[in-house]
């Protein structure tokens, strides 16, 4: 099967557009690769697994076999891929990828412009594709996007005593917060350590770097200037660090926050002991599931608040699929990647709350939720649709992003714990980040 026929077929399938939901999978020709074994490395985890159940369908359609070489979380997968680069063992075709990780991998992944047809690519949201592009090359096809919005316990905001008490103390009405300043006030108001906390934040690794970064932007700051000089040790940087520090010192967040990652904050909110929680879309279903969550049915959601510069925080990224340069059957790889990001596949993923990257899926998924009577997910998709469109921005898509992050977060912790002043900590981090950027050839 030649490449051009394959592309035509893909284009044809793409043209069916929204109607694709009703088209049975067998009607779309994904090509035929009998007796070929496609070797893939995928991100694992409960949220991502349902999609992989569909791989069997693709195998049946194309006659190929998919050999899943590994299925790990992204940090483990990242380590494995770096080892593969080091040892030259890139003997596989398709790998899960992420917009934040992709720039590290240099040229091991193929430019998908020309591999995936233009018609197919046109179905994707332009911003998602733009964020998947590294140095002009589309090195990954976005599978789903992610951004955070603010979840809160509804009943707390409806309680009359809370309303009156808050107004008396802070001088304005208790409403779901519009700014990070208000989040701080409300968190301190609701907090009653150690049984109840106002809010929480992830406290280590790239997680806190990301949270710092998005609020820095919201406060009018930037990590780097146009020449890649670190500039986050600015007044906006100090203001941002102080926001974390004040919450930590006033015990409005759990005392162990600095050792928390996403699972801790997600489970913490689900345990009903946290009032406000900035979190990813993928948690929505979990929070509203009575089996896992104490606050199911009592959850409110607003867009991520604004910083002092009037900008909303919107740290965003996409989970993606990439195809290696060393792949021995690009057509088969492209077919699988297209299949796993198809309209139907994204509908499957949307039901667990993952945000689609195909424009049409947003509306279709919402219609589906409404038909199912799941008003909460409708609200979630409406809120996240706006923030994906208006607020989303990625971290700098530079090779040493993780390395820069590893210089920043220990310093943030030092400042929050009061070992250094915020200014000292950020200055130290900026110096170290400068070294990293110099070594990487950006400066």
């Amino acid at each position, binding site marked *: 099967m030649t490449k051009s026929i394959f592309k035509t077929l893909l284009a044809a399938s793409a043209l069916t557009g929204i109607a694709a939901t009703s088209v049975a999978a067998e009607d779309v020709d994904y090509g035929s690769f009998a007796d070929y074994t496609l070797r893939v490395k995928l991100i694992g985890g409960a949220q991502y697994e349902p999609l992989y159940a569909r791989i069997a369908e693709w195998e049946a359609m194309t006659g190929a076999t998919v050999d899943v070489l590994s299925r790990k979380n992204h940090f483990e997968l*990242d380590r494995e891929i770096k080892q593969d680069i*080091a040892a*030259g063992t890139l003997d596989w075709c398709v790998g899960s990828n992420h917009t934040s990780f992709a720039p*590290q991998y240099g040229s091991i992944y193929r430019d998908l412009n020309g591999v995936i047809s233009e018609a197919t690519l046109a179905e994707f949201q332009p911003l998602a594709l733009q964020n998947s592009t590294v140095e002009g090359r589309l090195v990954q096809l976005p599978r789903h996007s992610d951004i955070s919005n603010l979840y809160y316990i509804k009943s707390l905001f409806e309680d009359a005593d809370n309303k009156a008490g808050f107004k008396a103390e802070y001088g304005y009405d208790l409403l779901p917060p519009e700014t990070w300043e208000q989040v701080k006030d409300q968190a301190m108001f609701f907090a009653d*350590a*150690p049984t109840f906390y106002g809010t929480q934040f992830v406290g280590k690794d790239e997680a806190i770097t990301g949270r710092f970064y998005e609020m820095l932007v919201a406060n009018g700051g930037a990590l780097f200037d146009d020449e890649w000089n670190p500039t986050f040790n600015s007044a906006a940087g100090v203001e941002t660090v102080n926001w974390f520090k004040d919450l930590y010192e006033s015990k409005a967040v*759990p005392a162990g926050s600095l050792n928390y990652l996403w699972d801790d904050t997600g489970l913490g909110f689900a345990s009903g002991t946290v009032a406000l929680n900035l979190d990813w879309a993928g948690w929505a279903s979990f929070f509203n599931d009575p089996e896992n969550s104490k606050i199911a049915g009592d959850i409110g959601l607003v867009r991520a608040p604004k910083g002092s510069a009037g900008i909303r925080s919107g740290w965003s990224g996409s989970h993606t699929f990439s195809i290696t340069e060393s792949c021995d059957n690009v057509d088969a790889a492209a077919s699988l990647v297209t299949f796993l990001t198809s309209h139907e596949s994204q509908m499957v993923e949307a039901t667990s709350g993952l945000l689609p990257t195909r424009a049409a899926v947003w509306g279709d998924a919402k219609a589906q939720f409404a038909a199912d009577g799941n008003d909460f997910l409708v609200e979630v998709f409406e809120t996240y649709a706006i923030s994906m469109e208006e607020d989303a921005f990625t971290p700098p898509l530079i090779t040493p992003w993780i390395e820069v992050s590893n210089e920043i977060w*220990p310093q943030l912790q030092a400042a929050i*714990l009061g070992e250094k002043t915020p200014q000292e900590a950020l200055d130290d981090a900026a110096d170290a980040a400068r070294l990293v950027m110099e070594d990487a050839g950006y400066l």
Partner: protein
Amino acid sequence: MATKRVPFWQREKYTPYLLLLPAFLILMFVVLLPLLFSLYTSFTGYRLIRPESLYDWVGLRNYRRIFTDGDFWSAFGRTILFLTIALNLEFLLGLGIALLINKITWGQRTLRTIMMFPMMFSPILVGYQFKFVFNDNIGILNNALYALGLSDGAIAWLVDKYLAMFAIIFAEVWMSTSVFAILLLAGLFAMPRDPLEAAKVDGCNSWQVFRHITLPFLMPFVFIAMTIRSLDVARAYDIVDVMTGGGPAGRTELLWTMIARTGYDNARMGQANAMAYVSILLSIAFTYYFFTKLLAARKYMGGAE
């Protein structure tokens, strides 16, 4: 010239070397060869994601960088502190447990199996287990303290400057005390009865018996246990990595966590291998120290060689 020439591998002189050959071959292949490779890379600017940088010779730059880095030396000092405290605590607790169990005559096998229970736990599992035990919000420790009225706030075990170190040492001690206990118990079993009886006849109290007879006899076992433990104490990396990852703000950063982050996350393998060499020398120093103590104790005991 009547004697038939014996092939060299049958000559008595070479037998021990032949017997040791498999051991040395496999260690050369699995340990020495990789170490030579990593020694080489420690003089290069090798970055994991740029294979061609393997040939980028930078001389002593990696070593200069880490030796002038304050964070490295704090991690170095913290690793020594961690090793010293953990090994001594394990020894004392192991000794106590061994003495107790040694007293028991009935049902000892069951107790010994219970004693070895923590040895069944993989280090990675120990890490997760104590991450949850020490969790400030939902951990059983804080919940138990709170329920018993012993604390009125959430204690941030994994964040506080001293408690975080305490927590990782606690986990390591929990996992490894059994090894000490079992080795010391073996020592107690091997102990001849006569001197003990004689001492009792002479009117020594039990502390004096322990201090002047049992303990000196046990010392070689203590050093064996110390040597064995210092050999594989770096297993603690798995625990620390899961529990705190070296944080917060580097408060529990040990050489091993630093090496892993530098080498894999930051992809600076050359620099990480330079650190690894320092940590290997540190382990060797610890092991060598206990080993010479062991040899001395053996001489004192009048053992062979």
